[in-house]
């Protein structure tokens, strides 16, 4: 007898599984095996509790399509992760020519290489557009107000990190455009107040744009920032589930007292 009980999804009756006929001995061995394996894990981790908490929490009345922008951003991030892993299988951060050569190889030789590179490149634009739209939504809906202030702050950090991803990634193909644009970009950074010069030195791995700069950008682009980004997205989503998403600001709850009187 499975211990795992999820509440029945609120589907139309027709779609819900029928109860067994009394006296029927038909069993589904495959389904039973699956459920008992899940049970085994659940008995030791109580993961189903978390899943239930996440999936069956109620979403306030009036929630509309604008509320899909956050998860769309998340999806774009996942797409970047997957395509990025494939690119990393071929990419070499070698400023002496290996980097450019490896990107050329990906683009011209590898099966579907240009397609995956294109997905990664345009995916970054899509993610930036979506993150700005998501931010605009939370701004105009006043969703950053009590009790979601911290989630806004985490969100701004996510925005900065996303822009930093694009900045560090732009150098990696190591063609003329990316090389010179990044030099100018790092120089612009260097004019910033207080930390500006230090940040530039850190990015360049020294006072001059040199051979180690590319390797440093690569490490930042594929290890440092994605790690922080993933952790912060986790915190962001935890707070979303814990606090609940806002209802659109113009939606009012039905008065429970009036409702009872009517009933």
């Amino acid at each position, binding site marked *: 007898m499975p211990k795992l009980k999820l509440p029945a*999804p609120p589907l139309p009756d027709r779609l819900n599984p029928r109860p067994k006929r009394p006296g029927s001995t038909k069993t589904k061995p495959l389904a039973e095996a699956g459920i008992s394996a899940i049970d085994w894990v659940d008995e030791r981790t109580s993961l189903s509790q978390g899943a239930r908490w996440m*999936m069956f*929490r*109620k*979403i*306030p*009345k*009036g*929630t509309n399509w604008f509320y*899909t922008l956050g*998860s*769309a951003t998340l*999806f774009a991030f996942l*797409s970047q992760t997957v395509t990025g892993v494939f690119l990393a299988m071929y990419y070499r951060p070698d400023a002496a020519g290996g980097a450019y050569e490896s*990107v*050329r190889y990906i683009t011209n030789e590898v099966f579907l290489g*240009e397609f*995956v590179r*294109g*997905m990664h490149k345009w*995916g*970054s*634009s*899509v993610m930036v*557009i979506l993150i700005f739209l998501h931010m*605009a939504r939370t*701004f*105009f*809906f*006043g969703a950053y*107000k009590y009790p979601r*202030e911290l989630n*806004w*702050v985490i969100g701004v950090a996510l925005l*900065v990190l996303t*822009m930093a991803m*694009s900045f560090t990634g*732009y150098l990696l*193909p*190591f*063609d*003329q*455009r990316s*090389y*010179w*644009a990044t030099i*100018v*970009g790092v*120089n*612009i950074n260097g*004019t*910033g*107040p207080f930390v500006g010069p230090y940040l530039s030195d850190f990015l360049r791995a020294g006072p001059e*744009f040199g051979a180690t700069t590319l390797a440093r950008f690569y490490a930042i682009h594929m290890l440092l920032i994605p790690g922080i980004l993933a952790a912060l997205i986790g915190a962001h989503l935890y707070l979303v589930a814990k606090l609940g998403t*806002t*209802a659109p*600001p*113009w939606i*009012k*709850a039905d008065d429970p007292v009036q409702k009872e009187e009517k009933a």
Partner: protein
Amino acid sequence: MNQREKEEYLREFALLKQQGKPFFPYSVAKDGAMAVIVMLSIILMALVLGAELGPKADPTTTTYSPRPEWYYFFLFELLKIIKPANLVPLATIGVPTICMILLFLLPFYDRNPERRPERRPVATAAGIFTIIAMGYLTYLGASAGSPTQIDMETPPQIVAQGGPMLEQFETGKQVVAQSGCEACHKFGENGNDGPGPPLTDIASRLPKQAIARTLINPTAPMPSFKALQANEPEKFDAMVTFLSQLK
């Protein structure tokens, strides 16, 4: 927000939540539909637009356009608007830093409990203004381009001198035109007016030596052309000669 307003909000929110629908399957279905749209857009763009790879990076070379990814255009355009040299640091990181701090602290200085956009005129107006400004700057950046041509007439006294001087001048004009200087400088009718000063009559402001020094050791954000000087001194000299004749 004071304690009473907080409690009021939480009570109202609890009711709204009670009257809402479960995340699964309603929101999951919407989010899934959106994910499909996102995926299809990315695939479509990858198929139609592809992923180009320009010529290999070369610190000494001359044909490049220092253009960032399009969503950084607005920052670059900001540089052009705030031009005086002593204000450049302010424009480059100063304004973005201030904007970032304002953005981070938004929930702490906007303590108005009202959430409807039409009843928060200041916040809504500021938001719309930011969107329009960023959109406009991005548009400017996208249409600015990075010209690689200088149409300035060769001055008559140089034509009259002829010989090596004329040759150096013409070579220099080409090198400058192809070195991306026009992304930041204006030469006569060509190039962008900023972030750097117009160079149409640079020689009346700077002696030749100083021009060469600026190219080797410039103030940020201008990139250094030290590598060009080290590897292809003729080109570098031609560039300096050309600039030192612009009066």
